[in-house]
Protein backbone atom coordinates (compact mmCIF):
# COMPACT_ATOMS: atom_id res chain seq x y z
CA UNK A 1 0.00 0.00 0.00
CA UNK A 2 2.86 2.41 0.50
CA UNK A 3 4.74 3.30 -2.61
CA UNK A 4 8.30 4.46 -2.42
CA UNK A 5 8.76 7.17 0.17
CA UNK A 6 12.27 8.09 -0.84
CA UNK A 7 12.49 11.48 -2.52
CA UNK A 8 13.61 11.18 -6.10
CA UNK A 9 14.40 13.76 -8.72
CA UNK A 10 11.12 13.00 -10.48
CA UNK A 11 9.10 14.19 -7.49
CA UNK A 12 8.39 17.87 -7.24
CA UNK A 13 7.23 17.39 -3.66
CA UNK A 14 7.92 14.69 -1.18
CA UNK A 15 6.82 14.44 2.41
CA UNK A 16 8.54 11.88 4.52
CA UNK A 17 7.06 10.90 7.88
CA UNK A 18 5.71 14.33 8.69
CA UNK A 19 4.37 14.85 12.17
CA UNK A 20 2.53 18.06 13.09
CA UNK A 21 1.60 19.30 16.55
CA UNK A 22 -0.55 22.27 17.47
CA UNK A 23 0.23 24.29 20.60
CA UNK A 24 3.17 21.98 21.36
CA UNK A 25 0.85 19.22 22.52
CA UNK A 26 -1.95 18.12 20.26
CA UNK A 27 -0.83 15.78 17.54
CA UNK A 28 -2.67 16.50 14.27
CA UNK A 29 -0.88 14.30 11.74
CA UNK A 30 1.51 11.47 12.45
CA UNK A 31 3.97 10.07 9.98
CA UNK A 32 2.41 11.31 6.75
CA UNK A 33 4.39 10.52 3.59
CA UNK A 34 3.24 11.81 0.22
CA UNK A 35 4.97 12.14 -3.16
CA UNK A 36 3.80 14.40 -5.97
CA UNK A 37 5.54 13.60 -9.25
CA UNK A 38 6.70 16.46 -11.46
CA UNK A 39 3.79 17.54 -13.66
CA UNK A 40 1.50 15.05 -11.90
CA UNK A 41 -1.88 15.38 -10.25
CA UNK A 42 -2.37 13.73 -6.90
CA UNK A 43 -5.38 13.69 -4.61
CA UNK A 44 -5.39 13.56 -0.84
CA UNK A 45 -8.73 12.17 0.22
CA UNK A 46 -10.30 11.77 3.60
CA UNK A 47 -13.13 12.72 5.92
CA UNK A 48 -13.53 15.91 7.92
CA UNK A 49 -10.78 16.38 10.48
CA UNK A 50 -8.61 13.61 9.08
CA UNK A 51 -5.64 15.96 8.70
CA UNK A 52 -5.88 16.98 5.06
CA UNK A 53 -5.71 20.74 5.62
CA UNK A 54 -2.99 20.35 8.22
CA UNK A 55 -0.93 18.42 5.69
CA UNK A 56 -1.28 21.23 3.15
CA UNK A 57 -0.43 23.87 5.75
CA UNK A 58 2.71 21.98 6.70
CA UNK A 59 3.77 22.22 3.05
CA UNK A 60 2.88 25.90 2.54
CA UNK A 61 4.23 26.92 5.95
CA UNK A 62 0.91 28.40 7.03
CA UNK A 63 0.96 26.33 10.22
CA UNK A 64 2.75 29.21 11.93
CA UNK A 65 -0.41 31.27 11.73
CA UNK A 66 -2.15 28.69 13.92
CA UNK A 67 0.59 27.88 16.42
CA UNK A 68 1.32 24.61 14.68
CA UNK A 69 4.71 23.17 13.83
CA UNK A 70 6.25 20.27 11.98
CA UNK A 71 7.89 18.35 14.76
CA UNK A 72 9.32 15.47 12.83
CA UNK A 73 9.90 14.38 9.26
CA UNK A 74 11.35 15.72 6.06
CA UNK A 75 9.72 18.16 3.61
CA UNK A 76 11.38 18.30 0.20
CA UNK A 77 10.46 20.53 -2.71
CA UNK A 78 12.36 20.00 -5.96
CA UNK A 79 15.04 18.12 -4.07
CA UNK A 80 15.64 20.73 -1.38
CA UNK A 81 14.53 20.79 2.20
CA UNK A 82 11.99 23.53 2.87
CA UNK A 83 11.21 22.96 6.55
CA UNK A 84 13.07 26.08 7.66
CA UNK A 85 11.59 28.43 5.06
CA UNK A 86 8.95 31.12 5.69
CA UNK A 87 5.62 30.98 3.84
CA UNK A 88 6.79 33.66 1.44
CA UNK A 89 10.06 31.97 0.65
CA UNK A 90 8.05 28.89 -0.25
CA UNK A 91 5.78 30.91 -2.52
CA UNK A 92 8.87 32.32 -4.21
CA UNK A 93 10.16 28.80 -4.78
CA UNK A 94 6.86 27.87 -6.42
CA UNK A 95 4.55 26.39 -3.80
CA UNK A 96 1.12 27.93 -3.56
CA UNK A 97 -1.79 26.99 -1.33
CA UNK A 98 -5.40 27.79 -2.23
CA UNK A 99 -7.09 27.90 1.14
CA UNK A 100 -10.28 26.13 2.09
CA UNK A 101 -13.29 28.43 1.86
CA UNK A 102 -11.78 30.48 -1.00
CA UNK A 103 -10.72 33.41 1.21
CA UNK A 104 -10.62 36.03 -1.54
CA UNK A 105 -9.88 39.63 -0.48
CA UNK A 106 -13.51 40.67 -0.28
CA UNK A 107 -13.08 44.42 -0.30
CA UNK A 108 -10.72 44.35 -3.26
CA UNK A 109 -11.82 43.88 -6.85
CA UNK A 110 -10.82 40.68 -8.65
CA UNK A 111 -8.23 42.73 -10.52
CA UNK A 112 -6.77 44.02 -7.26
CA UNK A 113 -6.81 40.50 -5.83
CA UNK A 114 -4.56 39.48 -8.72
CA UNK A 115 -2.33 42.52 -8.19
CA UNK A 116 -1.94 41.70 -4.49
CA UNK A 117 -0.92 38.16 -5.43
CA UNK A 118 2.03 39.48 -7.44
CA UNK A 119 3.92 40.62 -4.35
CA UNK A 120 6.76 38.19 -5.06
CA UNK A 121 6.87 38.85 -8.82
CA UNK A 122 7.89 41.77 -11.03
CA UNK A 123 5.48 44.19 -12.67
CA UNK A 124 6.24 42.71 -16.06
CA UNK A 125 5.42 39.19 -14.84
CA UNK A 126 2.26 40.55 -13.30
CA UNK A 127 0.70 41.79 -16.51
CA UNK A 128 1.63 38.57 -18.32
CA UNK A 129 0.19 36.44 -15.50
CA UNK A 130 -2.97 38.51 -15.39
CA UNK A 131 -3.58 37.90 -19.07
CA UNK A 132 -3.06 34.18 -18.54
CA UNK A 133 -5.46 34.05 -15.59
CA UNK A 134 -8.12 36.00 -17.47
CA UNK A 135 -7.79 33.65 -20.43
CA UNK A 136 -8.44 30.65 -18.16
CA UNK A 137 -11.25 32.43 -16.34
CA UNK A 138 -12.94 34.87 -18.74
CA UNK A 139 -15.71 35.40 -16.22
CA UNK A 140 -13.26 37.02 -13.82
CA UNK A 141 -12.38 39.50 -16.53
CA UNK A 142 -16.03 40.44 -16.95
CA UNK A 143 -16.35 40.94 -13.19
CA UNK A 144 -12.90 42.47 -12.64
CA UNK A 145 -14.16 45.78 -11.22
CA UNK A 146 -16.72 44.47 -8.67
CA UNK A 147 -15.74 43.98 -5.02
CA UNK A 148 -14.78 40.31 -4.79
CA UNK A 149 -17.11 39.83 -1.81
CA UNK A 150 -20.03 40.20 -4.19
CA UNK A 151 -18.93 37.47 -6.59
CA UNK A 152 -20.75 34.13 -6.61
CA UNK A 153 -19.19 31.15 -4.87
CA UNK A 154 -17.97 29.70 -8.15
CA UNK A 155 -16.46 32.99 -9.26
CA UNK A 156 -14.75 33.36 -5.91
CA UNK A 157 -13.24 29.90 -6.25
CA UNK A 158 -12.00 30.82 -9.72
CA UNK A 159 -10.52 34.01 -8.29
CA UNK A 160 -8.82 32.08 -5.50
CA UNK A 161 -7.24 29.75 -8.06
CA UNK A 162 -6.39 32.63 -10.40
CA UNK A 163 -4.81 34.52 -7.53
CA UNK A 164 -2.65 31.49 -6.76
CA UNK A 165 -1.59 31.24 -10.42
CA UNK A 166 -0.33 34.84 -10.25
CA UNK A 167 2.55 33.63 -8.07
CA UNK A 168 3.81 31.44 -10.97
CA UNK A 169 3.67 28.23 -8.97
CA UNK A 170 5.28 24.91 -9.82
CA UNK A 171 3.03 23.15 -7.34
CA UNK A 172 -0.60 24.16 -6.90
CA UNK A 173 -2.24 22.90 -3.72
CA UNK A 174 -6.01 23.13 -3.57
CA UNK A 175 -7.95 22.68 -0.36
CA UNK A 176 -11.53 21.53 -1.04
CA UNK A 177 -12.17 23.60 -4.16
CA UNK A 178 -15.54 21.89 -4.61
CA UNK A 179 -16.85 22.92 -1.20
CA UNK A 180 -20.32 24.45 -1.41
CA UNK A 181 -20.40 24.58 -5.20
CA UNK A 182 -23.01 23.20 -7.59
CA UNK A 183 -21.89 20.01 -9.39
CA UNK A 184 -21.65 21.69 -12.81
CA UNK A 185 -19.36 24.35 -11.36
CA UNK A 186 -17.22 21.70 -9.73
CA UNK A 187 -16.91 19.98 -13.11
CA UNK A 188 -16.01 23.27 -14.80
CA UNK A 189 -13.38 24.18 -12.24
CA UNK A 190 -11.84 20.70 -12.24
CA UNK A 191 -11.67 20.81 -16.02
CA UNK A 192 -9.78 24.07 -15.93
CA UNK A 193 -7.39 22.71 -13.32
CA UNK A 194 -6.57 19.67 -15.44
CA UNK A 195 -6.20 21.89 -18.49
CA UNK A 196 -3.63 24.04 -16.67
CA UNK A 197 -1.90 20.85 -15.54
CA UNK A 198 -1.77 19.53 -19.12
CA UNK A 199 -0.79 22.77 -20.84
CA UNK A 200 1.73 24.12 -18.37
CA UNK A 201 2.97 21.00 -16.63
CA UNK A 202 1.87 22.48 -13.29
CA UNK A 203 1.91 19.84 -10.56
CA UNK A 204 -1.26 19.65 -8.48
CA UNK A 205 -1.99 18.35 -5.01
CA UNK A 206 -5.74 18.26 -4.57
CA UNK A 207 -7.38 17.84 -1.18
CA UNK A 208 -10.98 16.71 -1.43
CA UNK A 209 -13.86 15.16 0.40
CA UNK A 210 -15.57 14.85 -2.95
CA UNK A 211 -13.68 11.72 -3.96
CA UNK A 212 -15.87 11.04 -7.01
CA UNK A 213 -14.90 14.30 -8.68
CA UNK A 214 -11.29 14.19 -7.55
CA UNK A 215 -10.54 10.65 -8.73
CA UNK A 216 -11.74 11.60 -12.21
CA UNK A 217 -8.88 14.02 -12.80
CA UNK A 218 -5.91 12.76 -10.74
CA UNK A 219 -3.52 9.95 -11.52
CA UNK A 220 -2.85 8.90 -7.92
CA UNK A 221 -4.59 9.24 -4.62
CA UNK A 222 -3.77 9.00 -0.94
CA UNK A 223 -6.33 8.29 1.72
CA UNK A 224 -5.78 9.90 5.09
CA UNK A 225 -7.55 8.94 8.29
CA UNK A 226 -6.97 10.30 11.78
CA UNK A 227 -3.72 11.88 10.74
CA UNK A 228 -2.27 8.82 9.01
CA UNK A 229 -2.03 7.75 5.39
CA UNK A 230 -3.94 4.48 5.23
CA UNK A 231 -3.98 3.85 1.51
CA UNK A 232 -2.08 4.94 -1.60
CA UNK A 233 -2.73 3.79 -5.14
CA UNK A 234 -3.54 4.86 -8.68
CA UNK A 235 -6.87 6.60 -9.22
CA UNK A 236 -8.16 3.60 -11.19
CA UNK A 237 -7.30 1.14 -8.45
CA UNK A 238 -8.78 3.42 -5.78
CA UNK A 239 -12.03 3.68 -7.70
CA UNK A 240 -12.23 -0.11 -7.81
CA UNK A 241 -11.24 -0.61 -4.19
CA UNK A 242 -14.30 -1.89 -2.29
CA UNK A 243 -13.51 0.05 0.89
CA UNK A 244 -13.16 3.29 -1.02
CA UNK A 245 -16.31 2.57 -2.98
CA UNK A 246 -18.17 1.88 0.17
CA UNK A 247 -17.08 4.81 2.25
CA UNK A 248 -15.94 7.55 -0.08
CA UNK A 249 -17.70 7.02 -3.37
CA UNK A 250 -21.19 6.82 -1.93
CA UNK A 251 -21.54 3.10 -2.46
CA UNK A 252 -22.34 2.43 1.19
CA UNK A 253 -25.89 1.41 0.48
CA UNK A 254 -27.79 0.49 3.56
CA UNK A 255 -24.81 1.20 5.79
CA UNK A 256 -25.28 3.67 8.56
CA UNK A 257 -22.96 6.39 9.71
CA UNK A 258 -22.22 4.22 12.71
CA UNK A 259 -20.66 1.59 10.46
CA UNK A 260 -18.44 4.16 8.85
CA UNK A 261 -17.31 5.32 12.25
CA UNK A 262 -16.61 1.75 13.17
CA UNK A 263 -14.64 1.28 9.97
CA UNK A 264 -12.52 4.28 10.80
CA UNK A 265 -11.84 2.99 14.28
CA UNK A 266 -10.85 -0.42 12.98
CA UNK A 267 -8.48 1.19 10.49
CA UNK A 268 -6.88 3.22 13.22
CA UNK A 269 -6.09 0.15 15.26
CA UNK A 270 -4.73 -1.67 12.26
CA UNK A 271 -2.26 0.98 11.20
Amino acid at each position, binding site marked *: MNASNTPTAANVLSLNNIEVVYDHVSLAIKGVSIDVPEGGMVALLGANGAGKSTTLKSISGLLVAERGEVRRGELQFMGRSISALS*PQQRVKLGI*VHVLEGRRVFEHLTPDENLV*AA*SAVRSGHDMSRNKERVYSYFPRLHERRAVAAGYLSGGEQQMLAIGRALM*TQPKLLMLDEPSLGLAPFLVAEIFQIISRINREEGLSVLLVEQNAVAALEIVSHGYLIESGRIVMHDTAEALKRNPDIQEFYLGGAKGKSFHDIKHYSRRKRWLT
Partner: protein
Amino acid sequence: MDWSLLAESAVNGGLVGLMYSLVAMGIVLIYKSSSVPNLAQGSMTMLSAYVVLAFANNAKVPLWLAILLAIVTMFGAGMAIERVALRRLAGRPIIMILMMTLGLEILLRAGSMTIWGGTARPMPLGISDDPLFLSPLLINRTYAVGAAVAVVMFGLLMLFFRTRLGVVLRAISDDYTAAWSIGISVERGVALSWAMSAVVATIAGILWASVQGVDQSLAQLLLKGVTVAVLGGMDSIGGALLAGVLLGLVEGVAGSFLDPLLGGASRDLVDAAMLILTIMLRPHGLYGRHDIERI
Protein backbone atom coordinates in the same frame (compact mmCIF):
# COMPACT_ATOMS: atom_id res chain seq x y z
CA MET B 1 -27.64 86.25 17.18
CA ASP B 2 -24.46 87.22 15.41
CA TRP B 3 -24.46 85.30 12.13
CA SER B 4 -21.04 86.31 10.98
CA LEU B 5 -19.55 85.16 14.26
CA LEU B 6 -21.35 81.85 13.86
CA ALA B 7 -20.07 81.45 10.29
CA GLU B 8 -16.59 82.33 11.45
CA SER B 9 -16.61 79.69 14.19
CA ALA B 10 -18.01 77.17 11.72
CA VAL B 11 -15.34 77.82 9.09
CA ASN B 12 -12.45 77.95 11.54
CA GLY B 13 -13.93 74.90 13.28
CA GLY B 14 -14.01 72.97 10.02
CA LEU B 15 -10.38 73.88 9.31
CA VAL B 16 -9.28 72.82 12.80
CA GLY B 17 -11.29 69.66 12.22
CA LEU B 18 -9.23 68.85 9.15
CA MET B 19 -6.17 69.18 11.34
CA TYR B 20 -7.74 66.66 13.73
CA SER B 21 -8.15 64.39 10.72
CA LEU B 22 -4.39 64.31 10.32
CA VAL B 23 -4.06 62.75 13.77
CA ALA B 24 -6.95 60.38 13.03
CA MET B 25 -5.46 59.27 9.70
CA GLY B 26 -2.46 57.90 11.56
CA ILE B 27 -4.74 55.87 13.81
CA VAL B 28 -6.71 54.62 10.81
CA LEU B 29 -3.57 53.55 8.91
CA ILE B 30 -2.50 51.25 11.72
CA TYR B 31 -6.00 50.01 12.47
CA LYS B 32 -6.60 49.18 8.82
CA SER B 33 -3.53 47.01 8.49
CA SER B 34 -3.50 45.26 11.84
CA SER B 35 -6.73 46.02 13.74
CA VAL B 36 -4.68 47.63 16.50
CA PRO B 37 -6.20 50.82 17.97
CA ASN B 38 -3.02 52.78 18.62
CA LEU B 39 -3.36 54.76 21.83
CA ALA B 40 0.19 56.07 21.37
CA GLN B 41 -0.75 58.13 18.30
CA GLY B 42 -0.99 61.35 20.35
CA SER B 43 2.43 60.95 21.91
CA MET B 44 3.94 59.97 18.54
CA THR B 45 2.58 63.31 17.30
CA MET B 46 4.19 65.06 20.27
CA LEU B 47 7.47 63.20 19.87
CA SER B 48 7.78 64.21 16.24
CA ALA B 49 7.52 67.89 17.15
CA TYR B 50 10.35 67.46 19.67
CA VAL B 51 12.41 65.67 17.04
CA VAL B 52 11.99 68.59 14.64
CA LEU B 53 13.15 71.01 17.36
CA ALA B 54 16.08 68.76 18.22
CA PHE B 55 17.29 68.93 14.63
CA ALA B 56 16.53 72.64 14.23
CA ASN B 57 17.78 73.97 17.60
CA ASN B 58 20.43 71.46 18.69
CA ALA B 59 21.85 70.35 15.33
CA LYS B 60 21.27 73.86 13.94
CA VAL B 61 20.04 72.74 10.54
CA PRO B 62 17.51 74.89 8.66
CA LEU B 63 13.87 74.24 9.55
CA TRP B 64 12.89 72.63 6.23
CA LEU B 65 15.78 70.18 6.56
CA ALA B 66 14.89 69.53 10.21
CA ILE B 67 11.35 68.65 9.11
CA LEU B 68 12.66 66.31 6.42
CA LEU B 69 15.07 64.64 8.86
CA ALA B 70 12.25 64.31 11.41
CA ILE B 71 10.06 62.59 8.82
CA VAL B 72 12.83 60.10 8.08
CA THR B 73 13.54 59.59 11.79
CA MET B 74 9.88 59.05 12.61
CA PHE B 75 9.50 56.62 9.70
CA GLY B 76 12.24 54.55 11.32
CA ALA B 77 10.76 55.04 14.80
CA GLY B 78 7.37 53.77 13.61
CA MET B 79 8.98 50.66 12.17
CA ALA B 80 11.01 50.13 15.33
CA ILE B 81 7.95 50.41 17.59
CA GLU B 82 6.16 47.76 15.53
CA ARG B 83 9.17 45.48 15.39
CA VAL B 84 10.13 45.69 19.06
CA ALA B 85 6.83 46.15 20.87
CA LEU B 86 3.95 45.01 18.71
CA ARG B 87 5.09 42.12 16.53
CA ARG B 88 5.63 39.75 19.43
CA LEU B 89 2.03 40.34 20.47
CA ALA B 90 0.53 39.14 17.19
CA GLY B 91 -2.27 36.72 17.95
CA ARG B 92 -2.43 37.71 21.63
CA PRO B 93 -5.65 39.05 23.17
CA ILE B 94 -6.50 42.53 21.93
CA ILE B 95 -6.54 43.88 25.49
CA MET B 96 -2.82 43.10 25.85
CA ILE B 97 -2.07 44.91 22.59
CA LEU B 98 -4.17 47.88 23.67
CA MET B 99 -2.35 48.05 27.01
CA MET B 100 0.96 47.91 25.17
CA THR B 101 0.05 50.97 23.10
CA LEU B 102 -1.06 52.70 26.30
CA GLY B 103 2.31 51.81 27.84
CA LEU B 104 4.05 53.30 24.81
CA GLU B 105 2.04 56.47 25.10
CA ILE B 106 3.06 56.91 28.74
CA LEU B 107 6.67 56.03 27.93
CA LEU B 108 6.93 58.60 25.14
CA ARG B 109 5.28 61.31 27.19
CA ALA B 110 7.37 60.67 30.29
CA GLY B 111 10.50 60.18 28.21
CA SER B 112 10.06 63.52 26.46
CA MET B 113 9.51 65.18 29.84
CA THR B 114 12.80 63.71 31.07
CA ILE B 115 14.80 64.70 28.02
CA TRP B 116 13.29 68.04 27.06
CA GLY B 117 11.43 69.16 30.18
CA GLY B 118 7.88 70.45 30.35
CA THR B 119 8.27 74.05 29.21
CA ALA B 120 6.44 74.89 26.01
CA ARG B 121 8.72 75.84 23.10
CA PRO B 122 7.71 77.60 19.91
CA MET B 123 7.66 75.86 16.55
CA PRO B 124 8.74 78.68 14.22
CA LEU B 125 7.01 77.69 10.99
CA GLY B 126 6.86 81.30 9.91
CA ILE B 127 3.11 81.33 9.31
CA SER B 128 1.87 84.83 10.04
CA ASP B 129 -0.43 85.39 13.00
CA ASP B 130 -2.49 87.89 11.01
CA PRO B 131 -5.81 86.43 10.07
CA LEU B 132 -6.92 85.93 6.49
CA PHE B 133 -9.78 88.24 5.58
CA LEU B 134 -12.41 86.36 3.65
CA SER B 135 -15.00 89.13 3.09
CA PRO B 136 -16.71 89.30 6.51
CA LEU B 137 -14.83 86.34 8.05
CA LEU B 138 -11.51 86.21 9.82
CA ILE B 139 -9.71 82.95 9.14
CA ASN B 140 -6.77 81.72 11.16
CA ARG B 141 -3.86 81.27 8.74
CA THR B 142 -2.29 78.31 10.54
CA TYR B 143 -5.62 76.48 10.50
CA ALA B 144 -5.96 77.18 6.80
CA VAL B 145 -2.48 75.84 6.06
CA GLY B 146 -3.06 72.82 8.30
CA ALA B 147 -6.36 72.05 6.62
CA ALA B 148 -4.79 72.30 3.18
CA VAL B 149 -1.99 69.96 4.22
CA ALA B 150 -4.57 67.50 5.59
CA VAL B 151 -6.42 67.47 2.28
CA VAL B 152 -3.16 66.95 0.40
CA MET B 153 -2.19 64.07 2.73
CA PHE B 154 -5.58 62.52 2.12
CA GLY B 155 -5.05 62.76 -1.63
CA LEU B 156 -1.58 61.24 -1.39
CA LEU B 157 -2.85 58.35 0.71
CA MET B 158 -5.70 57.71 -1.75
CA LEU B 159 -3.18 57.59 -4.58
CA PHE B 160 -0.90 55.35 -2.55
CA PHE B 161 -3.66 52.80 -1.91
CA ARG B 162 -4.05 52.40 -5.67
CA THR B 163 -0.41 51.51 -6.19
CA ARG B 164 0.78 47.89 -6.08
CA LEU B 165 2.17 48.32 -2.59
CA GLY B 166 -1.03 50.02 -1.45
CA VAL B 167 -3.15 47.19 -2.81
CA VAL B 168 -0.96 44.73 -0.91
CA LEU B 169 -1.59 46.68 2.32
CA ARG B 170 -5.33 46.60 1.68
CA ALA B 171 -5.14 42.87 1.04
CA ILE B 172 -3.40 42.43 4.39
CA SER B 173 -6.17 44.35 6.11
CA ASP B 174 -8.74 42.04 4.47
CA ASP B 175 -7.31 38.62 5.33
CA TYR B 176 -3.97 37.88 7.01
CA THR B 177 -3.86 34.18 6.24
CA ALA B 178 -4.86 34.59 2.62
CA ALA B 179 -2.16 37.26 2.29
CA TRP B 180 0.40 34.84 3.69
CA SER B 181 -0.77 32.13 1.31
CA ILE B 182 0.20 34.15 -1.76
CA GLY B 183 3.59 35.21 -0.49
CA ILE B 184 2.80 38.61 1.01
CA SER B 185 4.98 39.45 4.00
CA VAL B 186 2.27 40.46 6.44
CA GLU B 187 4.83 41.48 9.06
CA ARG B 188 6.55 43.87 6.68
CA GLY B 189 3.23 45.32 5.58
CA VAL B 190 2.18 46.03 9.15
CA ALA B 191 5.59 47.58 9.88
CA LEU B 192 5.18 49.82 6.85
CA SER B 193 1.78 50.99 8.04
CA TRP B 194 3.29 51.96 11.40
CA ALA B 195 6.03 53.84 9.62
CA MET B 196 3.52 55.67 7.42
CA SER B 197 1.41 56.44 10.45
CA ALA B 198 4.44 57.92 12.20
CA VAL B 199 5.11 60.12 9.17
CA VAL B 200 1.51 61.36 9.20
CA ALA B 201 1.96 61.98 12.94
CA THR B 202 5.02 64.09 12.15
CA ILE B 203 3.08 66.29 9.75
CA ALA B 204 0.31 66.63 12.33
CA GLY B 205 2.81 67.28 15.11
CA ILE B 206 4.54 70.13 13.27
CA LEU B 207 1.28 71.87 12.39
CA TRP B 208 -0.24 71.48 15.82
CA ALA B 209 3.00 72.60 17.44
CA SER B 210 2.82 75.84 15.49
CA VAL B 211 -0.69 76.34 16.90
CA GLN B 212 -0.06 75.55 20.55
CA GLY B 213 3.70 75.19 21.00
CA VAL B 214 5.73 72.08 21.72
CA ASP B 215 5.05 70.42 25.04
CA GLN B 216 3.42 67.29 26.44
CA SER B 217 -0.06 68.66 25.89
CA LEU B 218 0.37 67.77 22.20
CA ALA B 219 -0.13 64.15 23.25
CA GLN B 220 -3.70 65.01 24.24
CA LEU B 221 -4.50 65.25 20.54
CA LEU B 222 -5.06 61.51 20.96
CA LEU B 223 -8.56 62.31 22.23
CA LYS B 224 -9.42 64.27 19.09
CA GLY B 225 -7.77 61.66 16.92
CA VAL B 226 -9.65 58.78 18.50
CA THR B 227 -12.97 60.60 18.35
CA VAL B 228 -12.51 61.44 14.68
CA ALA B 229 -11.24 57.96 13.80
CA VAL B 230 -14.21 56.28 15.52
CA LEU B 231 -16.69 58.69 13.98
CA GLY B 232 -15.14 58.09 10.56
CA GLY B 233 -15.38 54.33 10.97
CA MET B 234 -11.86 53.39 12.20
CA ASP B 235 -10.70 51.94 8.88
CA SER B 236 -11.62 54.65 6.39
CA ILE B 237 -9.20 57.45 5.50
CA GLY B 238 -11.99 59.34 3.73
CA GLY B 239 -14.21 58.79 6.75
CA ALA B 240 -11.53 60.30 8.98
CA LEU B 241 -11.35 63.38 6.76
CA LEU B 242 -15.10 63.91 6.80
CA ALA B 243 -15.47 63.11 10.49
CA GLY B 244 -12.74 65.63 11.24
CA VAL B 245 -14.61 68.40 9.48
CA LEU B 246 -17.81 67.38 11.24
CA LEU B 247 -16.25 67.28 14.69
CA GLY B 248 -14.45 70.58 14.10
CA LEU B 249 -17.65 72.26 12.91
CA VAL B 250 -19.77 71.05 15.79
CA GLU B 251 -17.02 71.88 18.25
CA GLY B 252 -16.53 75.34 16.83
CA VAL B 253 -20.20 76.25 16.67
CA ALA B 254 -21.14 74.64 19.97
CA GLY B 255 -18.09 76.16 21.57
CA SER B 256 -19.03 79.68 20.59
CA PHE B 257 -22.43 79.18 22.22
CA LEU B 258 -21.41 77.15 25.23
CA ASP B 259 -18.07 78.68 26.17
CA PRO B 260 -19.66 81.81 27.67
CA LEU B 261 -22.01 79.59 29.69
CA LEU B 262 -19.79 76.67 30.68
CA GLY B 263 -16.26 77.95 30.45
CA GLY B 264 -13.42 76.53 28.36
CA ALA B 265 -14.21 72.84 28.77
CA SER B 266 -17.19 72.86 26.45
CA ARG B 267 -15.19 71.63 23.44
CA ASP B 268 -14.04 68.57 25.31
CA LEU B 269 -17.62 67.94 26.36
CA VAL B 270 -18.65 68.05 22.71
CA ASP B 271 -15.87 65.59 21.84
CA ALA B 272 -16.89 63.21 24.58
CA ALA B 273 -20.53 63.40 23.48
CA MET B 274 -19.59 62.70 19.86
CA LEU B 275 -17.41 59.73 20.79
CA ILE B 276 -19.93 58.18 23.15
CA LEU B 277 -22.90 58.76 20.86
CA THR B 278 -21.06 57.31 17.85
CA ILE B 279 -20.23 54.15 19.74
CA MET B 280 -23.79 53.85 21.04
CA LEU B 281 -25.71 54.76 17.89
CA ARG B 282 -23.46 54.02 14.96
CA PRO B 283 -20.57 51.74 15.90
CA HIS B 284 -19.43 51.45 12.28
CA GLY B 285 -19.05 55.22 12.13
CA LEU B 286 -19.77 57.18 8.98
CA TYR B 287 -17.81 55.00 6.57
CA GLY B 288 -16.75 51.95 8.55
CA ARG B 289 -16.36 48.78 6.57
CA HIS B 290 -19.19 46.35 7.01
CA ASP B 291 -18.54 42.71 6.34
CA ILE B 292 -19.84 41.97 2.88
CA GLU B 293 -22.86 39.70 2.96
CA ARG B 294 -23.95 38.17 -0.29
CA ILE B 295 -27.66 37.76 -0.76
